[in-house]
């Protein structure tokens, strides 16, 4: 399968935090072909192993999260409209006027509405509409709705990935399905190159809420190095240059407290040696990625963060450049290939 087709399946699929089982088979089916072993842990993390030549003397875990932000049914009104809340960080301004899929017994279409503009006072019109003032219209009576939908059912935006110009695509849940697409490409590449380390490719659950998946999977794998592959803020006019990454210019490599300096130095060296485009990303404290959890698992695990530039993060029209997905995979493959034995790793990890 082409990486782009895989990304499209993931973006169009649904699995908000805590409900990743809805997307897991798509990932397992894709990863299985290129893995020596694959398993799903108690929290739902998918852990795929591609063995290296070193008989497990070095273990590298590379994680991307499979959950997405979304909505959840809170109440069914007498006229059949739904009230809802959000799971993960959602700007309510991005929800108004959307089409949604409500995942009850069946997945059914709905439209998000609110009090119409001309019934709002001029003061109200100047304000944004809060999520508690919106409804979802399913086109059914309460009786029919209650046969299909229950409180606690999940809701995602009804969006299909589309092609923009220049190998760029737009869709929902690119955070962090773009990371998973990169890991899929990496798994393919690992069949073409020699590597000493055993590589654990992990699709984690619940990054958007508690990072619980990263905690338990890194505990189980107990790697020497943990790398989170996530998305970074793509440059747009409203963002400061220092806060953002240019699309198409390669992944951001984070520097800061969450990151092991020796491992990072080596990653930069590899990118330079093989002429792989990367960008500087500075984050002083714990990052908003799985690496934050990985770093403090067990007695501590040296961590890295590699970020695919993504515009309009946490909207349903996130935009990325597929070139960055491939560049990220390539960088990781060369990095893995560059760690030849335990002594070399020891030297990298030395403070």
């Amino acid at each position, binding site marked *: 399968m082409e990486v782009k087709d895989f990304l499209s399946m993931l973006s169009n699929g649904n699995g908000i935090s805590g409900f990743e089982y809805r997307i897991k088979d798509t990932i397992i089916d894709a990863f299985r072909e290129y893995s020596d072993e694959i398993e799903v842990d108690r929290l739902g993390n998918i852990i795929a192993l591609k063995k290296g030549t070193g008989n497990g003397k070095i273990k590298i875990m590379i994680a991307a999260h499979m959950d997405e932000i979304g909505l959840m049914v809170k109440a069914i009104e007498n006229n059949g409209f739904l009230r809802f809340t959000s799971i993960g960080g959602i700007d309510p301004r991005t929800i108004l006027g959307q089409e949604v899929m409500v995942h009850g017994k069946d997945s059914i279409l709905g439209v998000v509405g609110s009090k119409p503009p001309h019934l709002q006072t001029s003061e109200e019109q100047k304000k944004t509409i809060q999520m508690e003032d919106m409804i979802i219209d399913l086109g059914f009576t309460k009786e029919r709705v209650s046969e299909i939908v229950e409180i606690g059912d999940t809701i995602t935006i009804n969006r299909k990935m589309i092609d*923009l110009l220049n190998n760029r695509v737009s869709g929902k849940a690119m955070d962090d399905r773009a990371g998973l697409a990169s890991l899929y490409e990496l798994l393919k590449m690992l069949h073409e190159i020699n590597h000493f380390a055993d590589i654990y490719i992990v699709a984690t659950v619940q990054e958007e809420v508690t990072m619980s998946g990263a905690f338990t999977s890194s505990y189980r794998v107990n790697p020497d190095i943990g790398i989170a592959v996530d998305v970074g803020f793509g440059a747009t006019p409203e963002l400061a240059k220092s806060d953002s990454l240019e699309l198409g210019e390669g992944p951001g490599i984070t520097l800061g407290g969450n990151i092991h300096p020796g491992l990072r130095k080596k990653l930069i060296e590899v990118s330079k040696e093989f002429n792989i485009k990367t960008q500087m990303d500075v984050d002083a404290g714990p990052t908003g990625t799985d690496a934050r959890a990985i770093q403090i698992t067990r007695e501590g695990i040296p961590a890295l963060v590699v970020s695919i530039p993504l515009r309009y993060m946490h909207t349903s029209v996130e935009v990325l450049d597929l070139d960055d997905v491939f560049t990220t995979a390539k960088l990781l493959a060369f990095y893995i290939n560059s760690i030849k034995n335990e002594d070399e790793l020891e030297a990298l990890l030395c403070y």
Partner: protein
Amino acid sequence: MLLKKLTEASGLSGNEKEVRDIIINEIKAYVDDIKTDKIGNLIVHKKGKNAGKKLMIAAHMDEIGLLVKDIDSKGLLKFMTVGGIDKRILVSKVVYVGEKKIPGVIGAKPIHLQKKDESSKVLDLDELYIDIGAKSLEDAEKYVKVGDYVSFATEYEEFGDGFIKTKAIDDRVGCALLIDLIKSDLDVEFYGAFTVMEEVGLVGAGPAAYSIEPDYALILEGTLCYEMPELESHLIPTKLGGGPAISIIDRTTIYNAPFREWIVKIAEKNNIPFQYRKTNMGGNDSGRIHTSGAGCITAGISVPTRYIHSPSSVMSKKDYDNSLVLLRAILEEYKEGKF
């Protein structure tokens, strides 16, 4: 399917060609005369029985949307609105730009980087733009240009209990009804007017009525419908599934009461569900038609439309069918001169 074809087509005010061409294709075999007038209205004449009074049936072709007004150095498109759009519904939507329908998205600042309370602030048009994936101004200009019209990338879909979700129900639903009347086997004479630029100030309707010079006119529309649970019933103008909405008053017309009552009697006599449009908000082509020339008597008949003027509006198939049944019954009585 006609309504799918009509609503998925792009036809913003002043740029109705794509819609007009679809309509011409649909009806040309069923009319005795067809012409596009000097400002783009499509006017047709269907001969048949009449009672010595000229009848005009009007629906507007245009829809609300956006218009590209600038392209910045990064290749992002700045835009203005065409017609009444609540800017709050633009965020996080997919659009098509220009005749080639280049896909683009209207994004927003990530919530992670927003200052406290920033998400309670309405994003102004100046802060929004369309991203088509271009890397620079030069790159963007290969595909789009200033002056390109932008429509929502909404697909027609049926859902719920006989509901339809699509864009531009206002007023492609009126166009569809008028097309169905033109194609029908009723032996009755009338003039059909598919008007331009209703959404930007009822522009096309006046000249259309001027050239037709009708005695009576029926204006077919998609109209306001909202049924939020907290609203008291007097604030709910129409109900979805309640049948065609008959206008009493709006911002542009106080509708002729005897003509309205005549229509209501036809509905009652034929057991056709109907409702009154219980608001004075909004307006339509009737505003210009009833004051055109020496004046004419108008009635407004509308299909209730939830989330009107937003990317995804909702209507009921039952309301469409009942509107058509009512219109046919009206024409049957009209040709016998029973008014």
